[in-house]
């Protein structure tokens, strides 16, 4: 993974304990979805954080927003911390002048996920939208 260029996509298929990762710079979309409770979250996410750090370093800001979509199912507390590290990397893009929009998508009945989203929203300066959805309709 270390020899990927910034124009490459980062695609990781989901398992029952790890999420789907679809970071597609050309499309301006970065999405994380599914369960996340790997045995060692740091080990699973380190290459992803490294890839994103590399992207942030090399990306030249422009007017086209980068869209980050996060739609988690169950995730452990170490993933909660890694997600904040990921958001901070996107925030460093925002601080370089790149418009970044994060969408935290969750079941509208799940107030726990809403609270988690509110915690992240309070911890970052970029646009961080909470998007409640009706899971039966989606």
């Amino acid at each position, binding site marked *: 993974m270390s020899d990927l260029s910034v124009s490459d996509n980062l695609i990781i298929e989901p398992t029952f304990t790890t999420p789907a990762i679809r970071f597609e710079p050309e499309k301006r979309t970065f999405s994380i979805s599914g369960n996340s409770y790997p045995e060692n979250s740091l080990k699973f996410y380190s290459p992803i954080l490294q890839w994103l750090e590399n992207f942030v370093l090399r990306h030249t800001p422009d007017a086209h927003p980068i869209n980050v979509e996060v739609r988690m199912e*169950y995730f452990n507390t170490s993933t909660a911390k890694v997600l904040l590290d990921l958001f901070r990397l996107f925030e460093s893009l925002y601080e370089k002048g790149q418009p970044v929009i994060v969408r935290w998508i969750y079941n509208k009945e799940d107030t726990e996920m809403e609270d988690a989203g509110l915690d992240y929203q309070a911890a970052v300066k970029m646009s961080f939208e909470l998007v409640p959805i009706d899971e039966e309709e989606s």
Partner: protein
Amino acid sequence: MTVSYEHRVLFKHEGPLDMEVLPQIVRQFERLLADGGARPPVRRRILNTLIELTQNIIHYGVKDDQFPPYIGLSREGQHITLTTRNLVYYSQELFLHSYLQNLLQMSKEELEALHHSTLTTGSYSDSGGANLGFVQIISKADDFSYEISSANQNYSWFTVKVSFVI
């Protein structure tokens, strides 16, 4: 692993735990809690607690085939209780007691503040943990208790009971 709808005990597992078994238990809990009418935020709290406690056992519990860990889920009226039991070394007792007693003396607000500061400024453990598991469990539970009792000359049983109103 047994599942029962008729009895107060909804689920019990006594045997080795690893990352192959955990997703199976998560799936069974999801189904049992959905069938039992638990609301989505309560389901999430219970499932998150199951994951944290089980991963603690996988990472830190003593592995001894004669004394396998236990996970149980029971229901009484509107209360669901998740119980885990596993072996720990005697040397872990003092740490567990002092760590958990400290957390149990905190108010919800203090626990939430600790959770926030650990999330935003804390570091990762050697096993990739965030040192947030019990902070989250206790702050989200409607009732939490634990017990440490002697198992043999070398080990103790560490039992955790976490209850939720569904």
